[in-house]
């Protein structure tokens, strides 16, 4: 894998939100074809890291470097990062009243392609991807996330990923809020997306997602740092034993 260059790379990244440092120097490289998972206790900085990488105005990277396909993203605005190939499925997707799912995605696709998608091609693509994720066709004309249930929002995030087909996707707790059947459908969607050209970073609390979407690398984040990395077996151990054994044995103070 080292003959390829990483899709996402960040070195010693520190993130500040509301004047508080919540990510305290993390580094990672994700190569094409790789799936990584970040696990860790509530409040350890997983979402802050994801948001900062995506370019959220509240989360500033105060130190360190980050690259998409070798290109530094620190000076890029969020929309430029998206067009450069980064995608973030949000832990708490916002509602956009008055903007339908179909129109929203059409605008997103237009900004990625630099031109309006042909209407019938687009309709076909949307219909196909919605069917693949078992999303009822009526959602196309509903306002984005407006009144959607928690699980419906997560499915729509994955629909957006499938349509935009980014090189590098960060999925922040896409599994939480999903019922058992939905978890399976959504995981299948993620697996359809993933191939040897794509990178995937999953933030999750549960092994159950990792039963479907298999990571090669698992990282544990606690108090703003990666305190342990390992293979898929690490996730299984966490499921059984919790975080205490790592957090207590590491040098990181909470």
């Amino acid at each position, binding site marked *: 894998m080292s003959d390829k260059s990483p899709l996402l790379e960040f070195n010693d990244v520190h993130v500040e939100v509301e004047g508080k440092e919540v990510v305290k120097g993390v580094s990672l490289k994700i190569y094409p074809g790789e799936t990584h998972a970040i696990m860790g206790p509530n409040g350890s900085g997983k979402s802050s890291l994801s948001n900062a990488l995506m*370019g959220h105005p509240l989360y500033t990277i105060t130190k360190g470097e980050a690259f998409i396909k070798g290109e530094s993203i620190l000076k890029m605005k969020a929309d430029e990062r998206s067009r450069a190939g980064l995608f973030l499925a*949000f832990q708490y997707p916002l509602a956009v*009243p008055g903007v339908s799912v179909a129109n929203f995605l059409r605008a997103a696709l237009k*900004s990625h392609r630099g031109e309006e998608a042909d209407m019938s091609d687009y309709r076909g693509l949307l219909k196909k991807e919605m069917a693949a994720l078992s999303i009822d066709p009526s959602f196309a004309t509903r306002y984005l996330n407006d009144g959607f249930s928690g699980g419906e929002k997560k499915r729509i995030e994955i629909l957006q990923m499938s349509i935009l087909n980014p090189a590098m996707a960060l999925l922040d707790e896409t599994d939480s809020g999903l019922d058992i059947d939905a978890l399976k459908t959504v995981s299948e969607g993620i697996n359809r997306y993933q191939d040897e050209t794509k990178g995937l970073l999953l933030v999750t609390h549960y092994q159950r997602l990792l039963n479907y979407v298999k990571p090669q690398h698992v990282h544990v984040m606690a108090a703003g740092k990666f305190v342990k990395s390992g293979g898929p077996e690490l996730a299984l151990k966490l499921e059984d034993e919790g975080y205490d054994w790592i957090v207590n044995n590491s040098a990181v103070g909470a």
Partner: protein
Amino acid sequence: MKQNPEYLINEMSPQLHRGPDWLKAMRRSNRLGFNESKLPPRGIHLWRYTDPRKFMLAVDQARDSDFAGECDTVASTETEHVKKGRLAAFVTDLGGRDINVLVSPKGLPNGVTICSLSDASEKHFDLIREHLYQLINRKTGKFEAMNGALWNDGIFIHVPDNQIIEKPIHLLREAGRENSAAFPRLVVIVGRNSEITLIDEYGGGSPDRSNGISFSNGAVEIFGAEDSRTRYVSLQRYAPAMNSYFTHRAKLKQNASMLTIPLVFGGELCKQSFGVELAGEGASSKMYGLLFGTGRQHFDNHTLHHHSAGKTNSDIDFKVVLKDRALSAYTGLIRIDNKARTCEAYQENRNLLLNKGTRAETIPELEILNEDVSCSHGATLGSIDEESIFYLNARGIDKSTAVRMIVGGFVQSTLKLVPDDLKERLSEFVATRLEAI
């Protein structure tokens, strides 16, 4: 035209001498109502934000004036739409001087009348006497009296019982250019179990302040009989140097329903009042307004829902988008009489301020005289939330497109209620106002 704060309506004004004796007497009485009343004091709530002197005239009558080009454009498309049957009728009202009615080749349902008020005062005198000045007259206010005296000609629509007009009727009221004054007037009577959709469009006026401003003072009276269904859309798209004053009043009998959509875009200074009295059990009124202000436009809108009968319900959602240094004041009054039990009344005013320097005021007023009601009101005021913009950015959409989409979303729920015939033009109005973002 420079306004004269001491302006009085001259006895010799030609409008005062139009129509049958009864009408002349009404006009004279309205003239006295205007001349004998003082300018409303600024301290009174409804005049806190707007100077009443701005609606006074310098001269007695509208000077003959050209009409703007947009009038012709709208007229030619709408004439086509009538021919194709997309509209039931298209009526043009040029400064109250010339009322022209074009009816769809399919014709109108039996007994439906669309004509000028002057024709109606001859052919339908009893209906005119029973309805004209019933809801808007010298007692309503000084400027209502002004229209009551000075309207020249207006539009009359009567739908007898049990008639459904499926396609909209479009009224285009064109005010003259600089230094002109228009006094549009409309009376609509919707019979029992009948249905009508009206698009009442106001355009024209002075395009440029340096040549002089223009003035308009309009009045609309609508009567909904038992079980009638009325949709009334008012579109105000006056030219930039127009001062306009407008009063709308409707009265609903048992089980009548009404949807009122005020769409407010134009002019320099615009004060409007939309009011519906729910006077019969089971009556229901909804008002969904949309205002978009840019530049230094000044808007002052009132809504009034007066529940005078029990088991009535009303709902208002008045949306405002402001850009540059535009100002909007909104006063929403809900009045529920003591005898009007078991009513529901809701009111909401949402203001989206696109930049600093805009100003929105919202004043809810409740006069609820019994306990057996369910009522709520709310107002929001704010800029577009950064989180929402970020969400769109994260999908590759740049900031200005994101803002346009979010504002488009904000106004969407109102636009989707507008008749198809108007939808496209409205989206354009909104889009042009968002272009500069």
